């Protein structure tokens, strides 16, 4: 009887203990990370603030890095979307530092200037673009259990930029798919799944219509899949994929896609998980890595966001956590990620796209306050 009363009384206490907001957000490390001597020396990272809301959100990252005393220092370079090319000094800096963090670069519509985001990716051969779309605890969305990584081929496909006018009124655009690029993106996708303990890779295609082009992509994926027997592989047509994403997103794990479909699928997945304002991502190649807001890097917001300073810095903050892991500073990455998640869970400081009324600076201050 007495034991029963004790048990009953301790239930609410136990409940509180296990559901207190920060309890599951405290990183517990039992086995430590052992660095090599000299790993703590500050690493240079190229920083490209970009256009419109770009400077606002990269400024947010700089502030948080400083508050954490992270062993990273930024070399700033001004690049704007209406420049004809990315300046050579910026490319050289990225080649030297191997890591870059950037805000979005706006492309003038139909203006004869090719997108600088795309140019940068091609120049540095950043052939894989990765967007991680997941539900943030505390952020209400229509879909639950979303944890999708979209890996998108970044250099060819529909974005080859090869267009010409055949006769007045008839325009052709070439979509190029090569075995070389399809193979390396498939290899990257499976390797990513293997290294991150992911269970399934889904290839997204439209090979029922574009039989040769997407057929070649699928062939490459299938070949690589045979080398990873522990990882499940399946294929899905892109229109069915979008339909499944809005009804049953929990069935997807890692998705590998050619260029254009990857753009659509990444934006759809980002939208169902909370919006492009919160999803981290980056572009990686054999030698360099550029981290930026997950999906839709060309979307630099409108003048109102800039004027009112209400851009959402969460996406770039989480991308910079990815960058810290890439630079092998796992403890700093964990601290930053935990702080951002705490702020979102708390719900007091959220920008407009998440349903709140805070400014960028208020969110940054909250993240700095939430750092361990």
């Amino acid at each position: 009887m007495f034991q029963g009363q004790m048990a009953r009384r301790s239930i609410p206490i136990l409940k509180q203990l296990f559901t207190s907001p920060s309890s599951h957000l405290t990183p517990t490390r039992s086995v430590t990370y052992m660095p090599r001597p000299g790993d703590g020396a500050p690493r240079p990272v190229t920083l490209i603030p970009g256009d419109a809301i770009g400077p606002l959100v990269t400024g947010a990252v700089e502030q948080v890095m400083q508050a954490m005393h992270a062993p990273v220092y930024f070399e700033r370079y001004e690049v704007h979307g209406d420049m004809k090319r990315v300046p050579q000094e910026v490319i050289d800096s990225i080649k030297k530092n191997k890591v870059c963090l950037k805000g979005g670069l706006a492309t003038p519509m139909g203006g004869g200037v090719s997108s600088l985001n795309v140019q940068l990716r091609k120049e540095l051969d950043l052939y894989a673009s990765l967007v991680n779309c997941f539900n943030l605890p505390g952020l209400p969305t229509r879909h639950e259990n979303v944890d999708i990584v979209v890996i998108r081929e970044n250099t060819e496909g529909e974005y080859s930029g090869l267009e010409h006018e055949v006769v007045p009124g008839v325009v052709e655009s070439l979509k190029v798919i090569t075995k070389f690029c399809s193979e390396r993106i498939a290899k990257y996708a499976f390797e990513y799944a293997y290294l991150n303990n992911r269970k399934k890779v889904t290839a997204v295609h439209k090979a029922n219509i574009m039989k040769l082009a997407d057929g070649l992509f699928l062939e490459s994926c299938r070949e690589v899949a045979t080398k990873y027997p522990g990882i499940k592989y399946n294929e899905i047509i892109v229109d069915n994929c979008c339909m499944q994403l809005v009804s049953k997103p929990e069935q997807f794990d890692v998705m590998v896609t050619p260029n254009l479909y990857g753009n659509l699928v990444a934006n759809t997945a980002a939208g169902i998980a909370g919006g492009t304002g919160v999803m981290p991502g980056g572009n990686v190649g054999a030698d360099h890595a550029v981290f930026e807001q997950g999906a839709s890097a060309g979307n630099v917001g409108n003048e109102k966001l800039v004027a009112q300073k209400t851009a959402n810095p969460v996406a770039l903050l989480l991308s910079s956590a990815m960058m810290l892991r890439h630079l092998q500073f796992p403890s700093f990455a964990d601290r930053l990620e935990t702080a951002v998640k705490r702020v979102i869970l708390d719900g007091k400081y959220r920008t407009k796209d998440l349903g709140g009324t805070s400014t960028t600076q208020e969110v940054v201050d909250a993240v700095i306050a939430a750092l361990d």
Partner: protein
Amino acid sequence: MATQLLRRRASQILSNANPNPSSPLSLARSFSSATGPIRATLFPGDGIGPEIADSVKQVFKAAEVPIEWEEHYVGDQIDPRTQSFLTWESLESVRRNGVGLKGPMATPIGKGHRSLNLTLRKELSLYANVRPCNSLPGYKTRYDDVNLITIRENTEGEYSGLEHQVVRGVVESLKIITRQASLRVAEYAFHYAKTHGRERVSAIHKANIMQKTDGLFLKCCREVAEKYPEITYEEVVIDNCCMMLVKNPALFDVLVMPNLYGDIISDLCAGLIGGLGLTPSCNIGEGGIALAEAVHGSAPDIAGKNLANPTALLLSAVTMLRHLKLHDKADRIQNAILTTIAGGKYRTADLGGSSKTTEFTEAICNHL
């Protein structure tokens, strides 16, 4: 009643001062149909096709819709004139009647013949695919306020089928955009918006990357937009569009898109309202032809068992009625369908209920 019909048609003709692709034939038809029923071609299709086509016929009879059906079936021999299983007579019938309704067709596997959908599209020059996506009240999905129409260019773009292998391991696929096709679909989109009382048309594109092709499409849309100053026109990049659609579909009204984006976005919107089993669709062809169709599959596993859901075909038939400007009949039938589903008592298995096709159809007839 005949004089009422004549008077209504006359006022329609006199007020219809806007020249557009679909009006010449409808004008011609409206004179001839003043005296008798409108003939429409019906392709019941395979699998569950015949059952749901019967549902449509039953509901139309109960609603006293002045339509006479001409049924055609897909043959089992290839017709050399059309290179497919659809006979020349079937296609002629659609061309003559100007309207048709098509159930799900399964293309037989094999070579040497064109797919059925491709045959219809090429022979009838079906250039625009229209899908009205409306949330069904009473059938709960994660999105309650979807009320948009996707209009997709159906003939060119990425689906021209022009691919070739340049050298081993390198494949090129051509995407073609022409001024003529883009103008045609933009004209239809704005005409549709005007005749159905819609306020905004959004053109979906990726012209920041594909500057010449999608740039041409946008230029054509802008030209047509100038002729309709009362309709708001905007341009949205496709990645923003995808994100906005899954976050807040109420932001969109009418969407007009080239082929590939249209395919993906229209299926995405179908997913928002509950899947292809509930989505109506209508293909518009040259000369005002309208072929409404059900876009779901033929479901051979439940064929003949009276379990199929006729909603998609019924709503497509309603779209067909609206094209024929029989708006009051269309509204009555649509309201009956929505009321039946919202009521919850009569729902087929795919909506979570246990009614048979015939019970569902009867419930709709009773709600008319």
